[in-house]
């Protein structure tokens, strides 16, 4: 593969962000090992945004959105992509300036480009979470979602967090001057397409054509029921993991066109109720000074 004359490779981009946010005092965490629609679902975001304790974390989270699959044909959309998520709690007063510095550290000369904070009110109905903030536009390209959480798991958090979600592919496209995400250089040797295009075609085919509706419906119901049981037993993280499973099953059913418009609000409300109970359960149990420890140790 020939080397790009300018712009970071996909992996350099991630490394730079890791470095930058580590220097800002963030815990550098790892992706969660379950399917989720966005980094917000990561327990280190969802739970840690609750309660009074300060928290700073940064991590890559692969995000699955079955309905966004385009069989690898769309240059901007895919059913699985990477988010880089940063949580700053409490949101520092200079959070915008720090964020802009992170862009500069990626080699973006802000004076040479058109940068905007365009209103975007974020909401996750399944998580019972919403916040206000912006899409950050770089020459019209949405590169980051910037949100001040106002509610998480149906709970108004005591301390407001800022959530920065970098669209890694978008930023890499911007840096490398490519229109097509599959043409991105992952490193100097491989393109993003070489790593993921084939997976994208197969997964889109699975999501849209082969995912077993009955099986997914059962998975949804079972995970939902299990989650309720686990909540009763006071096992918050396991209950939350079942919520993640039911949420993903819902997304697959949606991609198969198997969610009627009538039942959609009901199913979403069900998952949201679980999220609320998880949040409340977490807060009730939150005596441990360091809060959640996903390893269970």
């Amino acid at each position, binding site marked *: 593969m020939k080397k790009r004359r300018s712009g970071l490779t996909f992996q350099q981009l991630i490394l730079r962000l890791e470095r930058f946010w580590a220097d800002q005092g963030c815990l550098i965490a790892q992706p969660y090992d379950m399917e989720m629609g966005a980094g917000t679902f990561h327990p280190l975001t969802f739970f840690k945004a609750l309660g009074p304790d300060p928290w700073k974390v940064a991590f890559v989270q692969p995000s699955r959105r079955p309905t966004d699959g385009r069989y690898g044909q769309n240059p901007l959309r895919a059913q699985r992509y990477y988010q880089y998520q940063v949580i700053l709690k409490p949101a520092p007063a200079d959070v915008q*300036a720090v964020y802009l510095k992170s862009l500069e550290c990626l080699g973006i000369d802000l004076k040479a*480009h058109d940068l905007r904070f365009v209103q975007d009110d974020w909401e996750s109905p399944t998580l019972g979470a919403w*916040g*206000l903030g912006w899409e950050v536009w770089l020459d019209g390209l949405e590169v980051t979602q910037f949100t*001040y959480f106002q509610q998480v798991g149906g709970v108004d958090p005591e301390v407001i967090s800022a959530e920065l979600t970098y669209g890694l592919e978008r930023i890499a496209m911007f840096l490398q001057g490519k229109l097509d995400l599959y043409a991105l250089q992952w490193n100097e040797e491989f393109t993003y397409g070489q790593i993921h295009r084939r997976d994208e075609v197969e997964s889109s085919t699975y999501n849209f054509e082969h995912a077993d509706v009955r099986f997914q419906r059962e998975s949804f119901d079972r995970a939902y029921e299990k989650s309720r049981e686990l909540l009763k037993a006071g096992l918050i993280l396991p209950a939350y993991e079942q919520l993640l499973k039911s949420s993903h099953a819902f997304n697959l059913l949606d991609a198969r066109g198997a969610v009627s418009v009538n039942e959609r609000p009901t199913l979403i409300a069900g998952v949201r109720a679980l999220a609320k109970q998880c949040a409340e359960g977490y807060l009730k149990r939150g005596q441990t000074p360091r809060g959640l420890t996903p390893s269970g140790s």
Partner: protein
Amino acid sequence: MVQSFLLEIGCEELPADYLPAVLNWDEQGGLASAARAAFEEGGLPWSEIRLFGTPRRLVLLVQGVPPVVERTEEGPPVQVAFDPQGRPTRAAESFAGRYGVPVSKLVRKRTARGERLVLKRRIPAADLLREAIPAILRGVPFPKMMRWDASGARFARPIRWLLALYGSRPVPCAYAQVRGGSVTYGSRRQGSRPVLIKSVPSYFAALKRLRVDLEEGQHVRRTAEAWELIPLRRRKRERLLKLLRAAARKLKGRLQDERTDEFKWLLDTVTFLAEEPVVAAGSFRPEYLALPPEVLSTSMAKHLKLFSVYAADGKKLLPKFLAVLEGKPKDSARVMANIERIIEARFTDARFFYQEDTKGRLEGKVPDLAKVVFHEKLGAVGDRIPRLQRLLKALAQRLSVSDPTPWELERAAHLCKADLVTQMVREFPSLQGTIGAHYAGHDGEPAEVVRAIAEQYRPRTANDPVPPTPLGAMLSLADRLDTLIGYFGVGLKPTGSVDPYGLRRQALGFVRILIEPPPPLSFAGLSIDRLSDEGIQSWGSRLKADPAELKKDLRAFLRERFEWLALVAGRFEREQAEAVLAAGADDLAGAWERLKILSSFWNDQRKKQTLLRAAKVAERTGRIVRAAKETDGVGRVDPQRFTESSERKLWEAWSRVAPMIQEQIAGGRWVEAVEAYGSLYPQVHEFFEKVFVMDENPDLRRNRLAFMKEIFQALGGSFADLSRLPLAEERQKVGA
């Protein structure tokens, strides 16, 4: 000497959509009201309030604030304030203590609540301003508010700095975790550079140097009695529009229709998306012009806030666009190249949707509408199709219309909602109807049907024209009536200011179509009540409301919209609107016609005299009819029962005139009808002088009432209840 007070609220980027309201562009509320309320609360005089704003700052300038405000604080009554020995009591001391003065500073004063101790204070304006600032900030309303720091304070986006000056003095203040100061910051393009501001006038000069272009909001001036609005000048928006027009001309084109809501929204948005706006031009590959132009322009406007450029004739889209950038970047060409690549990606997406959608015919998507929910309680959109067809059929029959043909009506209703399940409308919901029409045209559907599909949602807003074709108008009417009946029928009427389904807008559009029909259509004579019966039946058992109640509510709802249109859009007098509605509020199209005639009479000196004579007949007969509670079922007039000569005389005259009036009304010869009616006045006058209507004998009484009712109804039941016109004032003017 009075001075100006300046408050700059430095924010993280405020939503562009919020700023017009905050700056009071179209409405009350907003920052001006918050400031007025806070000044009133603090007892602070002012002469003028001016508002300015950008995405990162809201600026309030209050002129004519005196340096010291005199205020009298009322203390305890004198008899409570001193004991019998004349020594001050605790009541007096604690009152004085509250203001940190000795009791000797208090004076006696007669007040409305008896003689009291009072304290005359001279409070520096700065103290009052310091208290007013948090009140102002708390008082600014936004559609959505947020918390951002531990203070729990709420605003549209985080406040990061406050600049507060009174003349050349900083006003110490605090809100949330921000302390007021005398520093402002430049635009992001200028690196948000801090600048010390020494006085109010120097603030505006400093912002100019920092290249921050403030947009103006509503200015309010205080007058002797109240306050008045100074005509709004949106200078930044105007400048930007001129720049955009010039840039379009340079591309040998012109901007899209500047009257459309999309254009106005886009111009407002870009005005408030940049502190230092700069216009730049770009282009895209001409092959995308094969897509519907609305798709391209909406995609550019909604997704990227870009302006489309049309050929000089205003019809054909050019493969160009205009962007409003935040300041001039070091490398504009590169920025535009980046934007062009995003457009390319967006258009590729749109083309993908177009290709997917047009793989089959539009009618093939109709069955999928069974899966689209209209409303949880109201079933699927697919269920609407047969109802719309039934309503259209009934409408055509009542209007005796044969063009559009029954087949066209059925076809239009069948296809009109199918685009809701296309990928394109899922991506661009605002293009519903437009996309359906494109696809229907692509499928070779008849031109009338295609147009009706495009027009079915018109008028979308108050300024949007009604559908220009008869089929489009009929479809839109049916759509709206079906919607209103459905929502009303399951108890989802709007209440107060809450109208989540936009039913007022739906109803307003409904009435507008009735009163501005596309030629040759006319809805005069159409009974909404009877049409609603058809609509209610078509819903079957799904509706929970009692049909009679439902119709009553619907009638009242439509009537309110009619009155609004009469007063605001038609600029008719309220009494005139009430007069025609009293004569019949079911046929609203007819009522509008009658309102126009009534108003033309009123505005013509000669016809007005005729009208006033007729109005006097209506007034006298109407008054007695209304006063008597038993006019229902008084039956027909029996001339045999008349006993007085005056009543026979009136009956004779009436018998002569009544058939004429009837004929004139039927022929629409309103002037003559009103004239004939007014000619009865001498006999009517004599009747009321000589005859006592409310006779003890019930037969005589009922017969006379029946007579009066017949006369009153002749115009009052068909044209207008003329007795509702403001006759008393007119009588004085014309000396009648």
